[in-house]
């Protein structure tokens, strides 16, 4: 869809977007209410017990670690931790939940009233038309920052996994039968609900990405959208600019990537606008975004509204968390992405751009930190250059992830060290880098093996320069006649003579000295 169509619609309507993000807590050893292990995949129904299969008489007991992780997640998103909380039963009939209720939380969740600040830059900035005036927006050097309210984070149990057989694309429509696997059932599941503070598809994407980075920094989940350990649903409605009442919303579900979140919302905004433009009414419904056809379509409409009849879970007692408990969890808070970005700028002297790109990828930033630890803070910028240029380029062409290559942080640190102490030139380092990706050998060993050591000995370079001056008397004359740019020609010739092993700084010095004083 054309981007300007979205912008055109956003000029006439304000989009109001709220997200519901489910994240499986994969950091615990066991499930939410039983001692079955938490893992991904495996043979169907191989990690189950009477509790997570909903057998009559089984007694669920809450996992202390899962609750502590949820409180930690709340603290990381500036939520208030409820002094009094409890689980509720959410009643509904579906084969993924054989008790016929899900243990969840209702009016007394563990965490409420938090906030996350998102940064929007590049193309996304233009989507937010009121960025200069909106209350929750601050203009920054390269875009804007927006504060997004967190309504609540509650904890519940994940459902069983169902595979629908006989329908299109494994969907339920048209399916002849379904297969149920209870391995996932009972996995601790955090649900975070935002305030309807998001105004553009880009903000929704940035929020989901930021939240994922925060969760990864905490280590609470592996946050894999493909494997379903992080699942994003989006509510979207339109209204006229200046209105305070919300329009009728639709809900986008089964979004399996950040791009789909953005594109699905963009499609939905344009679709709703077309209906409103014709004087039509938006039907409140759940819709699915199909990545192939790039359109949303209504999921089978529910024949009646949900009526979950929540009531306090009688199998469990409430939770009363005092300040000492919260303080103890707070001590576990690691450095979060924003703080880390600020530290890179402050202590490592990195440009904002470097700091931002490095901290926007959890694996990359951990890799970078390890390399800096090995190379020393004085080389932080050089390490950043190598990670963002050489390593990123290699990852792009190879299609590998940061942790999947033969290049470790120690490789990077050693290579930067070799440039720093003058053993090799930056140009030679690029060659070493390529050898390194192929063999996984350490840079010092490669330099040794290939005889790539940089020649910094002025005497050796001087003799080459003297030879060249005899060889190219015309060029020397032209240089001395004022064509100073010819120094580049001489540098090239020296490098060629010395198989690229001459130290470029020394070459420049020697050349300037010899040519100017000849």
């Amino acid at each position, binding site marked *: 869809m054309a981007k300007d169509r979205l912008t055109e619609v956003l000029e006439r309507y304000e989009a109001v977007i709220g997200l*519901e993000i489910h994240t499986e807590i994969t950091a615990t*050893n066991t499930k939410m209410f039983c001692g079955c292990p938490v893992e991904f995949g495996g043979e169907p129904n191989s990690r189950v017990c009477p509790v*997570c299969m909903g057998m009559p008489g089984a007694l669920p007991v809450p*996992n202390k670690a*899962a609750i502590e992780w949820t409180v930690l997640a709340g603290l990381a998103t500036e939520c208030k931790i409820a002094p009094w909380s409890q689980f509720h039963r959410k009643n509904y009939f579906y084969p993924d939940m054989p008790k016929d209720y899900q243990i969840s939380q209702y009016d007394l969740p563990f965490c409420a009233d938090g906030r996350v600040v998102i940064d929007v830059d590049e193309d996304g900035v233009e989507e937010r038309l009121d960025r200069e005036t909106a209350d929750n927006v601050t203009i920054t050097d390269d875009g804007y920052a927006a504060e997004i309210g967190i309504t609540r984070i509650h904890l519940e149990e994940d459902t069983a996994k169902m595979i629908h057989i006989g329908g299109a694309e494994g969907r339920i429509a048209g399916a002849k039968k379904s297969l149920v696997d209870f391995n996932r059932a009972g996995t601790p599941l955090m649900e975070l609900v935002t305030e309807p503070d998001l105004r553009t598809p880009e903000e929704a994407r940035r929020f989901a990405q930021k939240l994922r980075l925060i969760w990864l920094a905490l280590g609470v989940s592996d946050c894999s959208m493909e494997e379903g350990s992080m*699942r994003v649903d989006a509510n979207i409605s339109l209204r006229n600019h200046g209105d305070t009442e919300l329009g009728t919303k639709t809900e986008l579900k089964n979004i399996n990537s950040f791009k789909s979140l953005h594109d699905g919302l963009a499609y939905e905004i344009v679709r709703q606008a077309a209906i409103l433009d014709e004087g039509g009414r938006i039907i409140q419904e759940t819709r699915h975004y199909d990545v192939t056809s790039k359109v949303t379509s209504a999921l089978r409409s529910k024949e009646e509204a949900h009526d979950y009849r929540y009531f306090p879970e009688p199998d469990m*007692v409430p939770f009363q968390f005092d300040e000492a408990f919260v303080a103890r969890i707070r001590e576990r808070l690691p450095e979060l992405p924003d703080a880390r970005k600020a530290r890179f700028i402050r202590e490592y002297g990195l440009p904002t751009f470097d700091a931002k790109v490095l901290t926007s990828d959890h694996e990359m930033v951990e890799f970078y930190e390890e390399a800096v630890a090995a190379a020393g803070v004085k080389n932080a910028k050089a390490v950043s250059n190598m990670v963002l240029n050489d390593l990123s380029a290699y990852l792009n062409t190879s299609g590998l992830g940061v942790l999947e290559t033969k290049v470790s942080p120690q490789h990077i640190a050693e290579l930067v060290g070799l440039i720093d102490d003058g053993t090799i030139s930056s140009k030679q380092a690029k060659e070493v880098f390529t050898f390194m990706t192929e063999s996984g050998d350490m840079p010092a060993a490669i330099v040794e093996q290939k005889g790539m050591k940089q020649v910094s000995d002025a005497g050796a370079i001087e003799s080459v320069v003297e030879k060249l001056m005899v060889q190219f008397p015309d060029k020397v004359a032209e240089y001395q006649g004022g064509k100073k740019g010819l120094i580049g020609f001489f540098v090239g010739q020296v490098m060629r003579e010395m198989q690229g092993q001459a130290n470029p700084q020394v070459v420049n010095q020697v050349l300037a000295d010899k040519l100017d004083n000849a």
Partner: protein
Amino acid sequence: MSLSKEEVRHVALLARLGLDDDQIERLEGELNAILDHINQISQLDLDAVEPTTRSIPVVNAMREDVVRPGFDREMALLNAPDREDGAIVIPRIVGPGGGDQ
């Protein structure tokens, strides 16, 4: 506040209970008797009384995050009417329902 027959049918559907007209009639009376009782309690001034959802004064009952043995697979599938590749087979899903997962 009292329940109509229609509301009794709705509640029966939510609970997936198949009730005939006689049963609906009887339950309408029984449920309304319970609601009358609740309505009487609602007349009282209970502002100073904490809602009671549990009869024992215990909080924070949790377990440590330690793996315990569960079912072996054969046991887990013993009651399944049909199975395929270790999964429980269920017939085509029809009608309303479904959580928000």
